[in-house]
């Protein structure tokens, strides 16, 4: 049986039109005969495709526009020249829901997101607030270029450029000293976690993974002011891992020593002493490196 979620189509005039047609289809297919389906099919041919555009899909365009809220105007920088036709196409698909497909729309949304992300990374303008502030200021400089008069250049260009330069310099500093440092720390932390994951219990892994999800969210925001919070969480997570690993290490050392002692009555004393000595070296190395891996006798 086909089930329609009718509430999805009631918020626009197109949606209401669709809802009417869905009701017609439901009535037609009720007898469950060949002809009833044939008649229903004729109605579906006339159905607008927007039945597949949910509010969530529509919102994607809005979210994208919020990422680049400045008016894109000439002269374009390469990023603007690349993103503009993509945004136009997304807007076109959204406006022409009846004839456009959601697949094409979504593909273009992804393309736009990639372009924005790549440009932000390449230009080191990862913080959305600074990214927008920089381009708003750049637009003011474009106004000067479009006006193209000597006096306007003299009156405004130096001041505008200095503003732009200031934003750029501040950003570079924050990008290098805050964002990159936090990012590197995060990578190191994730590697640390991956390395010792096998020695951590499932309950603790879940807690740590939740922490990493929080850190991920902070990184996704790309806001410099949240990077300190991210670093704080990373430090806390690293400490937790270290604490778990140390406890695990101590247990392993105790167990190892216990196992070695158990072996004493069963093997030649000289062999036991060699074994005991080797295990002591392994424990010492583990103490020095802080690594549990050398204590893993299965390796």
């Amino acid at each position, binding site marked *: 049986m086909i089930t329609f979620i009718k509430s999805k189509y009631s918020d626009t005039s197109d949606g209401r039109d669709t809802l009417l047609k869905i009701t017609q289809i439901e009535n037609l297919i009720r007898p469950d005969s060949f002809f009833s389906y044939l008649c229903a099919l004729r109605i579906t041919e006339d159905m607008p495709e927007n039945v597949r555009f949910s509010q969530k899909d529509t919102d994607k365009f809005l979210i994208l526009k919020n990422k680049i809220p400045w008016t894109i105007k000439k002269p374009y*920088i390469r990023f603007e*020249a690349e993103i503009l036709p993509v945004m136009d196409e997304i807007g076109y698909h959204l406006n022409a829901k009846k004839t456009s497909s959601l697949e094409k729309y979504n593909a273009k949304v992804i393309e736009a997101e990639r372009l924005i992300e790549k440009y932000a990374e390449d230009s080191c303008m990862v913080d959305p607030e600074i990214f927008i502030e920089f381009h708003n200021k750049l637009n003011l400089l474009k106004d000067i270029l479009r006006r193209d*008069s*000597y006096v*306007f*250049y*003299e009156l405004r260009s130096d001041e505008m450029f200095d503003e732009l330069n200031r934003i750029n310099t501040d950003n570079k500093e924050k990008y290098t000293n805050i964002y990159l440092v936090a990012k590197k720390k995060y990578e190191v932390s994730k590697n640390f976690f991956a390395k010792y994951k096998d020695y951590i219990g499932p309950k603790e892994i879940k807690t740590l993974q939740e922490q990493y999800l929080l850190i991920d969210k902070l990184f996704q925001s790309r806001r410099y002011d949240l990077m300190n919070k991210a670093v704080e969480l990373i430090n806390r997570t690293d400490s937790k891992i270290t604490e778990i690993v140390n406890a695990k290490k101590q247990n392993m050392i105790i167990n190892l020593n216990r196992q070695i002692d158990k072996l004493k009555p069963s093997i030649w004393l000289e062999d036991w002493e060699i074994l005991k000595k080797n295990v002591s070296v392994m424990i010492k190395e583990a103490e020095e490196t802080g690594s549990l891996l050398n204590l893993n006798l299965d390796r």
Partner: protein
Amino acid sequence: MLLKPFSNKMNISYKDFLKQNYFISVNSKGLKKVNLKGMNIISKACDANSNEIKENDIIRRSFAEMELTPELMTAEEKPFLEEIITARLAKIERNAQKDVSFYNLGAAFSIEMFDIIWLFELRSEDSTDAVNSVKEALRSTGRIELFEKWTRTAEDYLEYLENPADFVLLTQIKEKTEECVKEYEGNLFARFLLGLIYLKPAAYFDLNKAEQSIIEAAKTAADFGNSYLSALCDFLMGWISYLRSDYKKAVEYTLSAIDKEFINMPELYFSTAKYYAALNDPENSLKYLDEAVKRFDFIYAVKADVDDDFKNIGYELTDYFKKLRNDKKNSLLQKLKDLGIEFIEDNNVR
């Protein structure tokens, strides 16, 4: 406001032009242009032969009312420029750096303000040495009271500049200044002031007498080794020569002032450019205009655009404005490029 400079091409005598363009000193600190009612009051008080000035007689001088070369500026920029000029004229701080001076006024300077600005400058620390040299000369000959007399006369003149309708005061100042000169021929400042009084559009207006006084002031200034006043004399002599349509002589005077390495008066460079333009010599005219624009004040480009004498070299002037614009634009684009911002080639800025 940025004012169109007087030009011999204007259909008005210089004296009548001055009558339409009184500036008054405001509390000895700033400048203000007199309105139509004020012009008539002053003219009537200072010159009995004056005819009443009517609204329609007034020569429009504000750059804001004029059509300018588009490469130079568009109408939208006029208010911004107006703001800058107004601020320069209204500066009231007593800080030497911010004082109203020939240098700080730049292109906002207009010849009718000359005496006000000169007296302001005379009070500044920069002029202390020059004033003291006259004071010392009088003290050493036991005639210090003559210096005090001159100082009072200069103060009176500043007071007159606050109320130019006070013809009685002007007459007293003229007489006292003449006495100062008579009592001490080496009083270069008094000689110079006398020249300025003859250039006021009052009953005493007389270009010949003004010229004579300034020539004598120049000689005395040279004797004292006072290059500041010497250059100012050359500047005024250049102006008087221009008014007599002797443009070659005008150029000689301003070049002489520049040679004295008196660089704190950007108007000297603009005037030289103006006189060369009057001589229809675009190469030299643009050379000095460029100096005024790049070394001192970019607004001189606008001043040249509204000055009738520069119409002689209109074609070359437009090309110069285009070059100024393109240079500035390219410098901006290069700075943006250095910042990592490059505009793609296939979209024109316009």
